[in-house]
């Protein structure tokens, strides 16, 4: 059993990426993800890896594109405005069916926004992280431990489904220090990548990695094939935590740092006799709608709590599909909701449903 150490979320994530076999990091400085790059800059040269500070987020994601195409586990990390810049490259990665890891330690937006924690990039991460018909895998850690634990799985599923994966964290998770047990060794060795452009060595025909299809029927076929993979992802890869759900009537749905605040509010509500529970999505794409579906019969109402003006609530509504009401509480711009604010909303709803 590895020892428990105190670490920042950003550092735990970086170290976990190394454990997962990532030796190529390309990034550009931006708050509040700085420690990911700083950790990689220190560690990767010690183990024969590549840390490269690119001239822009755009260049960084294209370096990831090149390294992923060459067949290695590659990653980049950034924060909201920087991830906007990466959108072009992420679209190409998806269009080329390339696995990689993108980390978004979210801050408030739009524009330059602020540097405090936010969850206002949910739409960007789950709806379309760039132009075109595609999805990426999105993982939402809620603790420093999960900042580490979700990384290997993200790389592994990215390889399995040949699609980019994102860890969608926030400034709070990135910056906070908590005890963490780091994953040991490389438990998910990358699979063979016969499609990689790494030189045919005169033993196979040449590989081409490309997202251009001038014949519409060809392009449609590749997109449809990709969506068949997404359906498999939706069927088999949903992850969520259920907290006090078995007898709950008011189901809070919250992810990431916000879910911890919500958990406190749920405990307080229970102390007042309100039957509150929490569904905490760990995967955002695929959205864990099976967990919503499981409780939709017993639920009186769902309450989405987010650090945004309401983005994940759309996925909850789609999962609930009109069967029950879906309420919202959120703070945005880098403002954290307090447990008492959330409790206030729970009380208000409880009054309404009694």
């Amino acid at each position, binding site marked *: 059993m590895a020892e428990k150490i105190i670490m920042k979320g950003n550092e735990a994530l970086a170290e976990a990426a190394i454990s997962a076999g990532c030796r190529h990091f390309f990034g550009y400085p931006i708050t509040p993800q700085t420690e990911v790059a700083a950790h990689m800059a220190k560690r990767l040269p010690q183990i024969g890896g590549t840390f490269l500070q690119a001239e822009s987020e755009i260049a960084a994601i294209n370096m990831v594109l090149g390294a992923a195409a*060459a067949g290695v586990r590659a990653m980049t990390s950034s924060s909201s405005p920087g991830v906007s810049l990466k959108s072009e490259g992420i679209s190409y990665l998806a269009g080329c069916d390339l696995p990689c890891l993108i980390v978004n330690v979210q801050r408030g937006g739009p524009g330059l926004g602020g540097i405090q924690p936010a969850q206002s990039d949910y739409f960007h991460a789950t709806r379309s992280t760039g132009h075109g018909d595609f999805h990426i895998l999105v993982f939402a850690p809620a603790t420093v431990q999960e900042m580490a634990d979700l990384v290997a799985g993200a790389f592994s599923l990215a390889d399995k489904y040949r699609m980019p994966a994102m860890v969608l964290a926030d400034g709070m998770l990135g910056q906070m220090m908590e005890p963490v047990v780091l994953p040991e060794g490389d438990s998910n060795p990358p699979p063979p990548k016969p499609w990689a452009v790494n030189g045919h060595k005169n033993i196979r025909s040449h590989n081409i990695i490309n997202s251009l299809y001038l014949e519409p029927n060809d392009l449609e076929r590749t997109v449809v094939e990709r969506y068949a993979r997404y359906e498999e992802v939706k069927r088999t890869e949903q992850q969520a935590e259920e907290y006090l759900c078995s007898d709950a009537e008011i189901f809070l749905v919250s992810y990431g740092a916000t879910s911890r605040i919500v958990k406190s509010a749920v405990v307080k509500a229970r102390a007042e006799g309100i039957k509150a529970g929490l569904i905490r999505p760990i995967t955002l794409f695929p959205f864990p709608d099976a967990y919503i579906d499981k409780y939709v019969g017993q639920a009186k109402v769902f309450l989405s709590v987010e650090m945004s003006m309401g983005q994940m609530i759309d996925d909850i509504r789609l999962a609930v599909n009109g069967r029950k009401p879906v309420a919202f509480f959120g703070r945005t711009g880098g403002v954290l909701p307090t447990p008492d604010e959330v409790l206030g909303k729970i009380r208000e709803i409880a009054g309404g449903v009694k």
Partner: protein
Amino acid sequence: MATIFTRPKSIADVPFSYCPGCTHGIIHRLVAESIDELGIEGNTVGVCPVGCAVMAYDYFNCDMIQSPHGRAQALATGIKRAIPESVVFTYQGDGDLAAIGTAETVHAATRGENITVIFVNNAIYGMTGGQMAPTSLSGQVTQTTPYGRDTAIAGHPVRVCEMLATLEGVALAQRVTVESLRTVTAAKQAIKKAFTYQLEGKGYSIIEVLSICPTNWGLSTEKSLQWLRDNMIPYYPLGVFKDKYAKEGAK
């Protein structure tokens, strides 16, 4: 009967999409001949641009990847850093390399990224139908400069080799052309040298090839070649702008 002229081994036997009279075919051939002569096809990865050469992934027999517009050298950096023993080249036009991809170009160069850049400068956007390029000449009529490029409005054409030659990381920056047998031969030597430098780990090489675009220039091939001689070469002089490893007196 002895074969004295044939298709380079690393060029695929497929129809090219280039317009009649275009010099891309010649430049492809020079790249392929260099790859063949150095025996590096099995280790080479080529990066295509967005532009006329976008489908060059079908034309070379080495491994190929198609890049987002302007990002070829960042992408090439990722490949080269992942597999340092590979040979990586980009093949880019003037819009791709010197407009949308300027940052990626300058920074790959200043890092001394050990890659080979083939830069085809034909002073116009060919694929999209003849708009002003960063290298369009002063007064040049294009779709987006219908009254001629007015440098007071549209700025001045970029001399890429001269600009990059100031950067420490650049091993070789040379401008060539393919407007005659003599210049084709010189271009071939330059391209092969650029690949050789990469094999020797010498760092970043860029070979700028002055090229023609009869379709969008609205001239016959013959007149295009003359236009290149009369207008491009005076502004974009041929020559070696930097050769970090030139032998004393050999420059």
